[in-house]
């Protein structure tokens, strides 16, 4: 199309000027995309870490457990019903049961209150990152009398892998009992809360210590795809009835949801601002171009080109430059994100203390989704269009004779 050719040539009439605008657009787009990627990367981390550390996607408990997590709020069948319901279910990636109790752990030097968690070593490794968090010692084997504690707790008790610990608990019947265990390994999870106060042991050992028979406290479910969670929740609720509560990770940790949403809020306003600034820049350049080429435009009009065609040319010019800038910006953004991901993300260990309270790891990995690319491109095109409107009008507002007089 001739108009395109005209527009293209017009754009490059002053390469330096066009180049600067191009760069501005590229920087704007790349900046926004990278910023979005970092922001989303943080959100993903927050959520993923919470889910992987302990929450899972869904948890099933006896009714009343969430309000008051006492030992007697048990799933008496040991989670078998849930297991059977979900076995082989396409939407379920992994499933495990846990027993939760409280007690006192003593070493020869110190004691501390702990949350006792009985786990199935094999299945737990699939639903949480506990196994990956081992920093010394070994993972648990069912049937052993070994426990896993956090590094912080180990420091407090002044023990290490291999040391002996005595666990004192009040079992289900109310009796105070104690058993000896060895520290099988130490872990460091992203969660300070777990590192300071949780002790893990094989499920059978926990069940016998707490005197609960075959019962468990919770079933943790990890879905294959997060979008399936509501469906899974609904079908579990239907099948299991009133005696049981089924909760999603959002319901169990509303604070997380709050944080995620509050971070998004201001971001969009600022991105909009960047596009407005870009639009100003583009408009400015186009106006200059239009003014310089008044004679040429006049000739075109005189030669029979319609007004709207001239306007279209100007708009196309705007579009061309913008699209080129966007393409460049997207390329830079994609490359940067990719490069960052290669080196493992940005190191935030300076903030480890605060981050571990949220359960976030210290490497911030940007995440750029293809869908993220859509809106900046669309907004960029719209901005280009709007930026080109006024110059386009100005271009044709001068009468042919007038233009010719500028010779």
């Amino acid at each position, binding site marked *: 199309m001739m108009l395109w050719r005209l527009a293209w040539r017009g754009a490059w009439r002053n390469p330096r000027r066009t180049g600067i605008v191009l760069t501005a657009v590229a920087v704007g787009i790349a900046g926004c995309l990278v910023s979005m990627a970092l922001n989303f990367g943080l959100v993903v981390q927050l959520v993923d870490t919470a889910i992987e550390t302990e929450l899972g996607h869904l948890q099933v408990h006896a009714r009343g457990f969430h309000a008051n997590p006492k030992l007697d709020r048990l799933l008496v069948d040991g989670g078998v019903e849930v297991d059977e319901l979900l076995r082989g279910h396409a939407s379920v990636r992994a499933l495990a049961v846990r027993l939760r109790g409280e007690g006192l752990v003593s*070493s020869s030097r110190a004691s501390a209150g702990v949350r006792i968690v009985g786990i199935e070593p094999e299945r737990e490794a699939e639903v949480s990152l506990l196994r990956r968090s081992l920093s010394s010692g070994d993972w648990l084997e069912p049937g052993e009398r070994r426990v896993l504690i956090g590094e912080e707790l180990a420091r407090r008790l002044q023990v290490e892998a291999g040391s002996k610990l005595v666990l004192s608990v009040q079992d289900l019947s109310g009796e105070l009992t104690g058993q000896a265990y060895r520290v099988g390994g130490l872990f460091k999870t992203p969660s300070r809360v777990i590192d300071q106060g949780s002790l893990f042991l094989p499920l059978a050992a926990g069940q016998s210590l707490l005197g609960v028979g075959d019962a468990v406290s919770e079933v943790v479910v990890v879905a294959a795809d997060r979008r399936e969670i509501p469906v899974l929740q609904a079908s579990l609720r239907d099948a299991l009835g009133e005696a049981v509560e089924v909760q999603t990770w959002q319901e169990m940790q509303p604070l997380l949801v709050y944080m995620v949403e509050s971070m998004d809020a201001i971001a969009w306003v600022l991105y909009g601002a960047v596009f407005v600034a870009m639009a100003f820049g583009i408009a400015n350049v186009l106006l200059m171009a239009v003014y310089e080429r008044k004679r040429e435009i006049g000739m075109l009009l005189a030669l029979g080109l319609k007004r709207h065609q001239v306007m279209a040319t100007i708009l196309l010019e705007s579009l061309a430059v913008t699209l080129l800038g966007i393409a460049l910006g997207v390329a830079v953004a994609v490359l940067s994100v990719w490069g960052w991901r290669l080196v493992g993300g940005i190191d935030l260990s300076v903030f480890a203390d605060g981050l571990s309270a949220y359960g976030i790891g210290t490497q911030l990995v940007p995440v750029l989704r293809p869908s993220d690319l859509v809106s900046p491109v669309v907004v960029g095109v719209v901005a280009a269009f709007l930026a080109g409107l006024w110059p386009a009008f100005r271009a044709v507002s001068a009468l042919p004779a007038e233009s010719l007089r500028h010779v």
Partner: protein
Amino acid sequence: MTREIRCVASGALAASILLAVSIAAAASARAELLPAPEDVDARTLARRAEGSLRSDRTYLAARMVIESPRLTAPRKVAFESWEDAPAKRSFIRIREPAKDAGTGFLKLHPNLWMYIPRVERTVRVPPSMMLQSWMGSDFTNDDLVRESSELDDYDHAVLGIETEPPGSPGRRAYVVDYIPHEEAPVVWGKIRAWIDIENGMPLAQDFFDEDGERLRELRFGDFRELDGRHVPHRWELTPLDKQGHKTLIELLEIEFDAPMKDDVFTKRNLKRNVKRRR
């Protein structure tokens, strides 16, 4: 929000002391260690030592003196205790100080009840609270839970004969090491006991962690004859990893196989504030 938990049994206090006494080991390094005769059996020694301070029904009156950096002057608590070991029940009455006088503890396994005279209330103490320091002393929850038996949970080995056992310079004692079994619910790596050669009574105990570091010492003294036993009337427990802490128990009276009426071990008895025993 936990602090170091030191717990003392309720009625099990008496039992715990009796049990703890079954171990004695050489605390001071300067004394000599002579070889022990071949026929001395460590387990027999341990059983004798353990049994020397026990009976099925034991009555005792004692005064406990507690020293701590928190206190400007040592705290003194006088109490009486009745223990019925086979029925797993016991009763303790506090006599001094005046502020605590009349307080009663009733243990009917597995429950512990406490009576507070000033407010005239009886409350059930949840087991987690039993792990707290009893009246402020240094005894640990190991003593309370009593899942361990000095005889069954340990292997015993005689190391030799000590000519100057700690705290009892005139006596000669067997030095016996108690090594807990792997599954025994005991935090110690080792307990070293000094057992008097002549009368089989425990003289001293040292408690070690698994790395061999000595963490606390228990010393027995003031032995007096009673019912054919030499009973130490002075028990001193000193934690070695903290400064300025010590708990001393002085027996004022002790009776083995004492007759006890059932109505001693009732909630009603808690409220009665009986001044005299029986």
